[in-house]
């Protein structure tokens, strides 16, 4: 009789404890596809190229002062990989869950590290966010909730770094709202990056990965370890003075893009901005650089495709 009672009680609890929202299984290995922003994500953006960024004047001014020689400073060598690098860089991802061993509830979702970017742990247990003055780490602090089939995470408390590998700055006040949506064998991660210091409005980037259980993606990566790379002995920070950056005209010369557009800004992101370009832009006669630029497997130049590249310099 006691067994029947126990059974009925268990059945009752099963009915009332059904999760309010379902969760999609994100676990597995996801392979990147560089079908968007290939140059920026793979060989890297040109110096002085800020196309598609809603920079404010402060962000633009600081980006123009950037010199790649800052890599000679050990304390600045690991600044290129904040959590935004998930969508800014070329990297396959591994997702896995931390589960409570007693009740099986998902406590956190993890996104693997890559290159020098730290792993990201998205807490799902409702824990409070730390003080704004708490320690900022390279991976930041992230909490998540399910919105239907989308895992939405808020990432805060990550260190100052670069939003783009050519020196576009990212402040320690920046936050990321990350929407992670799985559609069958495709995973789309949308990041809405809000930086009150350097951006005039939130910046959106979305990328898509493909599920590939045969790909081995390590959950951890080699840590970013600073090393001497030709230190300056005068203690100065390599940079250009305002108005002296020698690379601001590169995009105009290579791709005929007007300098005003190259400098980014909110207005350059809207369709109507094309009207201001129409009389200023003449396409180069032929592609001369990075013309193929993608192939299955991730190689830089497509096999068997004879491209028109006359220059493959990566600076």
């Amino acid at each position, binding site marked *: 009789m006691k067994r029947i009672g126990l059974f009925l009680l268990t059945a009752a609890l099963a009915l009332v404890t*059904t999760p309010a929202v379902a969760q999609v299984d994100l676990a597995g290995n996801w392979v990147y596809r560089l079908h968007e922003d290939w140059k920026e994500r793979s060989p890297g953006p040109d110096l002085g190229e800020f196309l598609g960024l809603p920079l404010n004047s402060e962000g633009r001014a600081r980006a123009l002062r950037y010199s790649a020689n800052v890599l000679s400073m050990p304390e600045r060598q690991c600044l290129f990989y904040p959590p935004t690098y998930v969508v800014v860089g070329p990297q396959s991802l591994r997702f896995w869950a931390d589960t409570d061993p007693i009740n099986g509830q998902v406590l956190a979702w993890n996104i693997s590290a890559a290159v020098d970017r730290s792993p990201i742990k998205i807490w799902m247990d409702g824990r409070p966010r730390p003080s704004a003055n708490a320690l900022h780490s390279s991976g930041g602090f992230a909490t998540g909730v399910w919105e239907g089939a989308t895992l939405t995470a808020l990432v805060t408390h990550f260190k100052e770094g670069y939003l783009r590998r050519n020196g576009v700055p990212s402040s320690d006040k920046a936050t990321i709202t990350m929407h992670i*949506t799985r559609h069958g064998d495709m995973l789309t991660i949308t990041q809405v990056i809000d930086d009150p210091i350097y951006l005039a409005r939130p910046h959106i980037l979305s990328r898509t990965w493909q599920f590939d259980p045969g790909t081995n993606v390590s959950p951890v990566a080699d840590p970013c370890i600073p090393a001497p790379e030709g230190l300056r002995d005068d203690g100065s920070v390599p940079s250009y003075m305002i108005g002296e950056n020698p690379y601001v005209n590169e995009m105009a010369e290579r791709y005929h893009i007007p300098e005003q557009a190259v400098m980014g800004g909110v207005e350059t992101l809207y369709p109507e901005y094309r009207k201001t370009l129409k009389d200023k832009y003449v*396409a180069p006669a032929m592609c001369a650089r990075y013309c193929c630029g993608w192939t299955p497997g991730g190689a830089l130049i497509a096999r068997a495709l004879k491209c028109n590249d006359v220059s493959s310099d990566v600076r």
Partner: protein
Amino acid sequence: MAHRVAGAVLLWALACSGAHPAYGQARAAAPPSAKASAPIDLTGNWVSIVTEDWRYRMVTPAKGDYASVPLTLEGKRVADTWDPAKDEAAGEACRSYGAAGLMRIPGRLRISWQDENTLKVETDAGTQTRLFHFSGAEAPPATPPSWQGYSTAVWETIRTAPGMRPAGNAAATPAFGSLKVVTTAMRPGYLRKNGVPYSGNALLTEYWDVHKEGNGDQWLVVTSALRDPQYLQDPFLTSPNFLREPNGSKWDPTPCSANW
């Protein structure tokens, strides 16, 4: 005594779940229309925010610039024959405004219900119209190829395993979901203004998702996979973003252009 208590708890739990009676009623009733069952509201005005592939979308890139598109050799050969003046003269100026390339053309979307089971997506760039049919039927066999092809659509929401009770109240409209669209019967067109091609055999699968931000912004993200056995080695994956606008005051219809 324990038996009675447990039985009472079970009755209480069934009452709390509230799902079974509603579930049974829903099965008996006629299925709601696509409009009535929409888990997300796509209708309204949206504008492209071009933060990705700016150089390929906001201006016409140089001939021969097919970076990031997984072309086959045949695809590359066709791209190298691009001649916008020839397209214009042949009345083919809309080649880059076909369904496979349209969502990446900077512009505005106006989305509305044409009827209870057909969603209409209009673009001011190229003045194109896409129709998403929720009827469940594939393109009729005699469907002639067109720039926008024939699109079937279905709402995707959280599924429940067979035999299991769905979470929450099954009678309520789910608050979240995606729109899945599959498009066939497209005329051959361009993925980029500079003649990077897709063929008439291409199949376009899209997922339309809406994300709401804390500052009130609403983003529409269209995740697309274009499969083309003729010109692509792999599916071409893109995900352009649109920001919701309060009204259509900036709607600016412009005709197709082959060279701008």
